[in-house]
């Protein structure tokens, strides 16, 4: 594997820069909140800067191969390596994470949720960032697992400490669900380790190997373990119930991070690990994943229609949106998986933004009960319009980012990968398309109830209800811009992901057709790094 020797350190720095910031903040006394905010913001900006450099420096002509590849020993005794690298599949997600965090810190500038303590809050956020970026760059199953879990604790506390009324239940539920999933996922990782001849956790090798030498029955079981692990995180129906609770109770920043990045860890796991490593099992499970995905789409939408709380509604909409992402993945086609990655980024921007709005609404109205809101367009017109805009993006309006996650996923379902039942997926396609109607239904309904009409008597003369503030503008503008940019020029993302996705699937297909091209696969599949 040839490497770009000069900049290999870059990825490590990107991953751990937030942690360094967090360590510095540990040394600053708690009272000095301003310094904490500055350090946190600065750290995340540095990370963003590094990520931006990564984006520039990344060799797009070679997006299918891992770049900035580092492979050293980490825990020799268990054969786990510190193996990191980035290719077209992970690059957009890293960029998304690096972008979201500074916005969260900007927003936190004057929105530290109750009961305060900026120091702890910001440190946890930075640890989260390291965990999230780390998950996207990890190329070793154990490393992946560790980063995957690092995210858990800070999020738990974010909900538990800075959450709403019912935070205890929500945080525990979140924690238990995810841990349950990841425990089974770990079992699957171990099984992969022992069942393949290579005895390695290296994702590259396991991907090349693509389940060779594992009997079909075992593959199915191992895949099921990962399915649970990643599926809980996504979350897929019926493992989704933690999500609305977690979102509803989490502070705004927590919701944003949760929606924008955390949920993607699960779907990313599917496309990075579960499918390429066990293509045969993926093929067998695909109809079931697809089924749960479309159930999620419809179910999430129906759930939304039943909500009386704005934040909970947005949370449920995530279930539906991630359903589209999973449908794309379940087709096992390059179209579908490209769409899924796009959908992940788009959902991150859009739903993240929706949660920001919900947070601001809560701050102004001190309630998120849809019934009591109304007339936001009259009292805070910009806020109302932004809500309208983002709702449109969320319901998949072409020309905005959301569309490119949904439409290609539906498109891919028309013609799933060979070996996956076409009839079944065409039914899914129709159901998913119907889901778009419901999506429009609940989002517009939300918009109508909250933004349109006359302000209710309760809030009509409330001086608290002001329009978008400066910090909010700074925090939101990049997201809004991103929603438009990727909606108009979806190629920006598709062109990065496409080579990587195509290659990862090529490898699966090669294995499926039983070609003994181990040599060829070894040279191409592991290239780059």
């Amino acid at each position, binding site marked *: 594997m040839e490497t770009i020797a000069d900049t290999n350190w870059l990825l490590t720095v990107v991953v751990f820069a937030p942690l360094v910031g967090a360590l510095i903040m540990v040394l600053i006394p708690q009272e000095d909140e301003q310094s904490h905010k500055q350090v946190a913001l600065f750290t995340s900006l540095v990370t963003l800067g590094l990520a931006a450099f990564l984006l520039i420096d990344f060799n797009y002509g070679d997006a299918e191969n891992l770049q900035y590849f580092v492979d050293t020993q980490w825990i020799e005794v268990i054969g786990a390596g510190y193996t990191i690298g980035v290719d077209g599949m992970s690059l957009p997600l890293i960029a998304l994470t690096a972008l979201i965090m500074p916005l969260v810190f900007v927003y936190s500038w004057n929105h530290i949720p109750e009961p305060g303590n900026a120091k702890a809050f910001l440190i946890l956020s930075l640890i989260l960032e390291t965990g999230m970026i780390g998950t996207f760059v990890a190329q070793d199953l154990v490393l992946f697992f560790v980063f995957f879990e690092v995210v858990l604790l800070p999020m738990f506390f974010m909900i538990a400490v800075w959450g709403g009324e019912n935070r205890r239940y929500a945080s525990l539920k979140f924690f238990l669900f995810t841990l349950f999933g990841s425990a089974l996922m770990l079992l699957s990782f171990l099984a992969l380790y022992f069942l393949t001849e290579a005895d390695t956790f290296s994702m590259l090798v396991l991907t090349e190997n693509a389940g060779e030498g594992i009997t079909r029955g075992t593959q199915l079981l191992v895949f099921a373990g990962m399915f649970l692990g990643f599926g809980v995180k996504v979350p897929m129906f019926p493992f989704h119930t933690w999500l609305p609770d977690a979102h509803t109770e989490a502070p705004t920043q927590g919701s944003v991070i949760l929606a924008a990045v955390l949920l993607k860890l699960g779907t990313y796991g599917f496309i990075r690990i579960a499918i390429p490593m066990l293509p045969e099992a993926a093929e067998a499970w695909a109809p079931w994943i697809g089924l749960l995905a479309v159930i999620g789409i419809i179910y999430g939408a129906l759930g939304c*229609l039943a909500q009386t709380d704005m934040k909970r509604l947005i949370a449920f909409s995530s279930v539906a949106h991630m359903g589209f992402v999973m449908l794309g993945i379940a087709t096992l086609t390059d179209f579908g998986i490209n769409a899924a990655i796009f959908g992940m980024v788009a959902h991150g921007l859009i739903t993240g933004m929706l949660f920001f709005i919900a947070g601001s609404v809560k701050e102004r109205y001190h309630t998120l009960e849809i019934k009591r809101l109304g007339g936001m367009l009259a009292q805070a017109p910009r806020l109302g319009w932004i809500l309208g805009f983002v709702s449109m993006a969320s319901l998949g309006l072409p020309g905005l980012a959301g569309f490119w996650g949904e439409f*290609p996923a539906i498109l891919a379902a*028309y013609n799933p990968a060979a070996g996956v039942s076409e009839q079944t997926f065409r039914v899914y396609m129709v159901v998913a398309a119907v889901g*778009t*109607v419901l999506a429009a239904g609940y989002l517009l309904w939300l918009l109508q109830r909250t933004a349109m*009409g006359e302000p209710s008597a309760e809030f009509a003369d409330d001086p608290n209800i002001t329009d978008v503030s400066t910090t909010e503008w700074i925090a939101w503008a990049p997201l809004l811009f991103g929603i438009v940019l990727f909606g108009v020029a*979806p190629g920006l993302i598709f062109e990065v992901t496409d080579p990587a996705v195509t290659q990862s699937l090529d490898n699966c297909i090669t294995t499926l057709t039983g070609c003994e091209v181990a040599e060829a696969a070894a040279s191409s599949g592991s290239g780059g790094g």
Partner: protein
Amino acid sequence: MTHNANWFLEYAWLVPLLPALSFVGILFFGKRMRYKGAELGIAAVSLSFLLAVCAGFAWIQHHDDVGYQAVQSSTQWLQSGGVEFGAGVLVDGLSVMMLLVVTIVSLLVHIYSTDYVGDDKRYTHFFAFLSLFTAAMLFFVLSDNILQMIVGWELVGVCSFVLIGHWWEEKPNSDAALKAFLTNRVGDVGLIIGTITLFFAAGGGNTFDTIKINEAIVQGEVGHTALVVASVCLMAAVMSKSGQFILHTWLPDAMAGPTPVSALIHAATMVVAGVFMIARLYPVFFEGMQIGGSSINLMATIGAVTLVFGGLLAFVQDDIKKVLAYSTVSQLGYMVMALGVGAWTAAVFHLFTHAFFKANLFLGSGSVAHAVHSFDMKKDMGGMRKFMPKTYVTFIIGSLALAGLFPLAGFWSKDEILVGTGGWGLFGGTGGNGAYTFHLLMGLFGAALTAAYMTRCVYLTFHGEFRGDRSHGDPHESGPRILVPLYILSGLAIVAGFVNLPAGFQLVGDSWTERFGHYVEPYKSSYFPAIDHATPSWSLAVVASVVALVGAGVAIYYYFVKVDRLADQTQQSLTELPDGLSKSNGLAGAGHKVLVNKYYLDHLYEGVIVAFTKVPLARAAYWVNQKVIDRTVDAAGETAVLVGRQVYDVVDQSVIDGFVDGSGRVSDATGEELRQINSGKVQNYAAILFAMAAVLAGTFLIIFAL
């Protein structure tokens, strides 16, 4: 033309770009401008209009030079799965025609709006979205692939949503906006699926390019099943966008928006997007619906039903804009029916003429409403002729054009549609793609209806005595910014029909006939099916005119003669005759006396036409519309919410969450039980220890030693 003609065709993408830039400009800087953004919008649309005109001339030249060859310029938009998706413009007669229609109507509406919504608090915002709509619509008509069409299709839908809900303070307005958007979304399901089917089925697979898809179909490379599926699915989209029966209910509700919006979006341009799409992807429908070979098909039938249904509904409206809205539904029905019977040019031509006279009528109604601050013909209008003579004239011209009276624009286009049905075999009319006699009859019936309801509308609005509130003084004529667009549009309503005089029209030379069809219809190009053109028929033209005149005549007799006279007698401004069957009050009694003493025609009218058409049929249609179709739409929404509640309460909260919480409780309870082991008594502990040791020993002994 001094320029290289092709420049305007290749750079046609500038036409939508200008209003798009204007949208951004108005959005960010509009409030700070002198005229609050309106000037930017008008300037951009004017430029677009000029470019469109130039493109029109360029196209004519191009067509003369090289024949019907579309100019396509595209670039890669995105790439996925190794497939490249292009973005580009497709310029041919159809799109150039649409450019002209959209830009001119949009420009006039822009100008009109500066007065009409002049003191609106969201004036700037209104213009921003007018610009965006114009851009989106132009983008849509120029798309060279279906994916791009979807984008434009949805964007115009959003603009429609925003503009219908322009006065969102009132719940009915926002309801109407939601209804419009959601109904369209339902159709979009069809659009998405149909598009995807075409993507995989046509053009060797994996392309959205309209020309490639069309060519593949024309060359017979695409399986029939796929085309049936695609055409039926796309038809659903057309039905929602172009207000076809049964997805039309949003369109009358959409009248909640400001009148200029109704004129531009819900009469002239956006609602014809469905028609445009059929025209653009005609091979899909031609093959999928088997238009060429049969005498009945889904599309033609939907069109026919819609045109009659819409016409009937227009009868019973009291709101002037609703009359026009149902009229639009009816006219769109004509267009779809025309396409359904294979009369492509007739449909597109009707689209062209309809845009002008319907926009004219809408803006005219707006002018009246602007004066009386209401749209209710029965309550707040009447006798407006005296206050607004100029508006009256333009309105009359528009009505006549709509009614299809010679020689106004509507006459020519409607006549072509009737001819195109091929059902008029009796006196020399021939050909077409089959004998759609039923559709011809429906079309004729619709023509009579159109004339009649427009007569009613004109009477109620402009004749009789003013019934509105005079406390703020008399209504007065609108200003020039409203009137000038009305003049221009009524002028167009008069002359627009001449661009496509029927072949064999002996009054002019052959080089003046069928100009529109010649330049617009991609006949014999590689991406158009082989359709048969019907031969125009003098006899049908005469019959159609007579039918329309009869329709108008009956209504004139009813309103201008009978109602007027009764009004004179009773010294009241009446809107209709009291019910002849009821004698329970004085007014009704008087009416009844008049009735029984009059001509046989009365009986014919009362007993047959009115009694049969207006009262039961129109009212029945209205009842069905409001109580069945509309209720279905609402009920679908309510059911979804209800189901959502149920699913959420039962499945999510009880079953799934219950399972999760339940397992927690079971764990807790088990833990509690297990705690009993620790009784605190040390000898119990010892007993457990020894008992377990003994049990283990016993078990293993049994396993191993025995």
